[in-house]
């Protein structure tokens, strides 16, 4: 069997690898057309991510949120659900964790840090549960509800730290009066901050260890527990899962809660390990990046880990790339988008490289049901 599984491993890696290569090539062509030097850009990108200790530190720092949001999207995919809501869940995780983080100043770190992270997980979990419950009870499709909930979460988070207006508008409950007119929370107290593995200037914190452990936990849940079996069965074959006696509705809600919890955890770790406060501009594109990461990683937790590392290195190398080659780091989003397209439609890669689809090969793209 040894040979057989090696071949299968190669087969399952072929499309993602070709997708990465193709995305980089198309990205290079775009840069070349725009009059930039793609070779210098990629060189800068690589050096920025891996060329120095600080580069490595940045890559690792950017790894955990991508990894966790990627896992969030992936676990939903496993259950046949499309979680576009990772950014909203991330936001709620941030808000919950920051609330715990700025309060309870006299709590020992050993309790405070886990408590704040758990709060973040809870925030994401609750926010993720909403689309799950809506889907099961009313049939509302999770894609629409999660998109809408993203905006609601961002506005809600914005309100919590709103500095108030000069026309008598009241400030939000988490606003830091010391920040005067600036809308942000007070800094998270020392005891709630995730300790550094490598302190300044590297600022690599233990959150990454937590994220890596989460890979194993998720792999364990997905592949080694009855819960994972139920999630996957619902995702693969809705009818068969009813036949198998699985409580389909509950499983869908659970999958969305898990997805939310992971994204919420990402928010908590970013807040308690990197930003130490919340301001409305800390949102970014985590949600969309999570989709790319999940698909590139073939929704397998370990694959997601690798894919997130790749995207983190792109993000980390961006500054150096711009510094060295003058190429705007906006090109990275273009590469991410292309990557998403190529992994989501293996047909394109097969078409370009004339790869035949072997009969027993399964589609790598997850099945998502619409309207059902």
């Amino acid at each position, binding site marked *: *069997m040894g040979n057989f599984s090696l071949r299968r491993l190669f087969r399952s890696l072929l499309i993602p690898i070709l997708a990465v290569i193709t995305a980089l090539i198309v990205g290079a062509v775009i840069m070349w057309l725009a009059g930039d030097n793609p070779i210098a850009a990629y060189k800068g990108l690589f050096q920025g991510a891996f060329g120095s200790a600080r580069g490595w530190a940045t890559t690792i720092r950017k790894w955990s949120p991508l990894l966790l949001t990627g896992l969030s999207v992936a676990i939903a995919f496993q259950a046949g659900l499309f979680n576009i809501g990772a950014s909203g869940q991330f936001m709620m995780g941030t808000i919950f964790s920051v609330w715990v983080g700025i309060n309870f100043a006299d709590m020992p770190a050993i309790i405070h840090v886990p408590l704040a992270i758990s709060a973040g997980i809870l925030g994401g979990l609750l926010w993720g549960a909403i689309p799950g419950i809506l889907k099961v009870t009313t049939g509302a499709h999770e894609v629409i509800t999660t998109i809408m909930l993203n905006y609601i979460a961002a506005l809600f988070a914005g309100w919590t730290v709103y500095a108030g207006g000069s026309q008598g508008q009241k400030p939000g409950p988490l606003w830091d009066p010391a920040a005067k007119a600036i809308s942000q929370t007070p800094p998270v107290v020392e005891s709630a901050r995730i300790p550094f593995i490598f302190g300044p200037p590297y600022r690599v914190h233990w959150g990454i260890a937590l994220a890596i452990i989460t890979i194993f936990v998720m792999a364990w849940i997905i*592949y*080694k*527990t*009855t*819960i*994972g*079996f139920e999630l*996957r*069965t619902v995702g*693969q*074959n809705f*009818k*068969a899962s*009813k*036949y*198998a*006696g*699985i*409580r389909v509705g509950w499983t869908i809600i659970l999958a969305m809660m898990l997805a939310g919890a992971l994204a919420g955890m990402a928010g908590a770790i970013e807040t308690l390990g990197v930003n130490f406060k919340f301001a409305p501009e800390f949102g970014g594109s985590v949600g969309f990046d999570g989709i790319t990461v999940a698909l590139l990683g073939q929704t397998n937790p370990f694959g997601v880990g690798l894919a997130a590392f790749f995207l983190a290195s792109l993000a980390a190398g961006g500054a150096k790339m711009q510094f060295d080659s003058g190429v705007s780091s906006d090109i990275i989003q273009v590469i991410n988008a292309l990557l998403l397209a190529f992994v989501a439609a293996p047909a394109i890669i097969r078409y370009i490289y004339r790869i035949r689809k072997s*009969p*027993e090969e*399964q589609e790598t793209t997850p099945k998502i049901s619409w309207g059902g």
Partner: protein
Amino acid sequence: MSKDNIPVLEVKHITKRFPGVIANDDVNLTLQKGEILALLGENGAGKSTLMNIIYGLYKPTEGEIYVNGKKAEMHSPKDAIALGIGMVHQHFQLVPVMTVAENIMLGAESVKKNGLLDIKKVSKEISELSHRYHLDVDPSAKVEDLPVGVQQRVEIIKALYREAEILILDEPTAVLTPQEIEGLFEIMKRLQAQGKSIIFISHKLKEVLYISDRIVVLRGGKVVGETTPQDATQEKLAAMMVGREVILTVDKAPPSPGNVVLEVKNLKAKSDLGEMALNGVSFQVREGEILGVAGVQGNGQTELVEVITSLKKAEDGQVIISGEDMTNASPRTITQKGQSSHVPEDRHAYGMVSTYSVADNLVLNIYNLPPFAKGITINRPAIIKHAEELIKEFDVRTPGPLTPGGSLSGGNQQKMVVAREFSRPIKLLIAAQPTRGIDVGSIEFIHNQIVSKRDEGVAVLLVSSELDEIMALSDRIAVMYKGEIIDIVPREEATRENIGLLMAGVKRGEKV
């Protein structure tokens, strides 16, 4: 049977292969002007495939079609429509949210000078057509609001609106009430009188004998006979349709029925389309006996099994398993507490997850029980060991327990499902179409397994549209017709003929 006048439609040597299946095998067919030709055959005999080829929806692998003596090149239904062929599909091809007029003109729209649809003109034409053929419809009604019988009229008008000379009616009576069927037959006669030629597809003997001029019987994709209502009887047709070549015999001891395991009382349920599919079904199955449920597909058997196993909700009535009321209990309660097994009719949809390994498929509905799970952890070695044992015991041909279930052959997939369902201690076995689409070797194996379960004292409910299978295995035979059990016949009294008549809705003692 060759006549001087050219047939309006002639089908020559049509063969259609789908991956792994030959749906039509060298089929020849002629249709004369003004004739009603009945195409008779069981489900899966290849009738619908043949009609879809004539209608240009499928391309034949081999063979030719002639319309009015000219060879027809058909690439899409457009070509067929242009040649005057119209088809009323078994599943109506109507857009539910649109009106009758919109549906009828779709693809053949009438447009005013200003570019807008001329609904008025179309409505007028529809009124004319409905008047001429007594096809009463309101052009402005929405299709989703109409009863099925009226929807069918819309389909017929749709074909006539396109000036069809040849009408293919694919199982038109399957969804109609007896009154509606009568109405349909009147319409068909009227169409015939106006010179239209009709191909009428059915598996209902009475109807075929009543309405058609000529009958062609299809079995296993081949034409197996041709006759006229004058020369045929229901018995003869039933024999032709069901065939006698593959008669499987199973050695079995006489039954020794014990306590009642499954009792169904006045069960009512709706189909997925929301129509009543079960109209008060009652029966009992005892320990150590096989109750075979015969019937033409679509008479409520699927719903019956789904309701008993709780995949579908019962509207009314009771399902009692081992003395306990399990109506609308969870599927898991039925399987695990009710100690029952279910070999589902559609194994791809329900019975297995094709991307899962054979090992995982073998624990699909028992993964949560020891030794496969301890708490929430899955014990993979136990699952693999279980798989290895069952693969051996049930002779599932697979490269290994980790091969994806979907990559096995149909017969081995079914053996995999059977292995899972038969290998645990059970009191009740529900097997729906257990041998559909699999090879003879596997059929034999599965039949023997079912009998040995019976002999162990398990109550078996066997649902099959294969009459041979029912005859070979059952101790008693229940025949379903239109959502009801029309009769339950002890095996000794059952013959192919009397069961065939019951399947066609003819009660014992009733004159044809």
